[in-house]
């Protein structure tokens, strides 16, 4: 089956991200495809370029990047939710007169239309929220 995940919990603050990553690994192990992860609400903080957890905690940002690198999973971040929380790529940063972006590839800023599209075009959309 083709899966999409919707992550609405911030990294480390809530269990949502940890659970979403566990679920992602499990479904891939079972032969399903994780095509899209959409980050909304406080979930957008998962895309922060500068996440720096202590060494004895899992690096959640790297875990998402690994999913993209190994399985081609698209990592889409709601632009409206991201901008108001300070998650900007280089282009948005310069458009808003800010020095340096806080989000970089493989995470991509995208519109809420992509969430609706993910819900309609995948076999399953599973939400992870606090």
């Amino acid at each position, binding site marked *: 089956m083709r899966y999409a995940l*919707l992550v609405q919990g911030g990294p480390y603050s809530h269990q949502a991200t940890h659970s979403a990553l566990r679920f992602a690994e499990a479904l891939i192990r079972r032969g399903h495809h994780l095509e899209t992860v959409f980050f*909304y*609400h406080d979930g957008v903080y998962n895309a922060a370029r500068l996440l720096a957890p202590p060494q004895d905690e899992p690096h959640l940002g790297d875990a998402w990047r690994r999913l993209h690198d190994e399985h081609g999973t698209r990592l889409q971040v709601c632009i*409206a*939710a991201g901008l108001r929380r300070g998650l900007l790529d280089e282009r948005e940063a310069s458009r808003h007169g800010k020095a340096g972006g806080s989000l970089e590839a493989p995470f991509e800023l995208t*519109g*809420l*239309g992509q*969430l*609706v*599209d993910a*819900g*309609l075009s995948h076999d399953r*959309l599973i*939400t992870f*929220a606090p």
Partner: protein
Amino acid sequence: MSDESNLPSGDLLVVLRHGPHGSLWLREGLEAALVAAALGQRVSLLFMGPGVAALAANQQRGPLEQKGTLPMLEMLPLYEVEQLLAVEDDLVALGLGAECLAVPVERVGPAAVAALMARHPLVLNF
């Protein structure tokens, strides 16, 4: 109150469980509903729990300069979002009679919640 056989169906059910001003859940849920409707999806909104407070008339901006969500509710008809439902018990708990509501809603019983989810292929929960 409608019985289950009269419940609407659609492409997307947006469930709103948070009140205005205290968090961004309600605003970001309504934003998702409006975007889906603008893309031509048939959207139903279900207000439940503290989310029914979103329906109260005469809301202003929050005292901490939150924008409030009432203008978004008033825009719903422009986007052809006309299926608004609210859980009756939750309205009663907050003392929200029909005369207190900013927009007309269909009142449903708790059993309708599961039925509504079954009638929409996509459910987003806020």
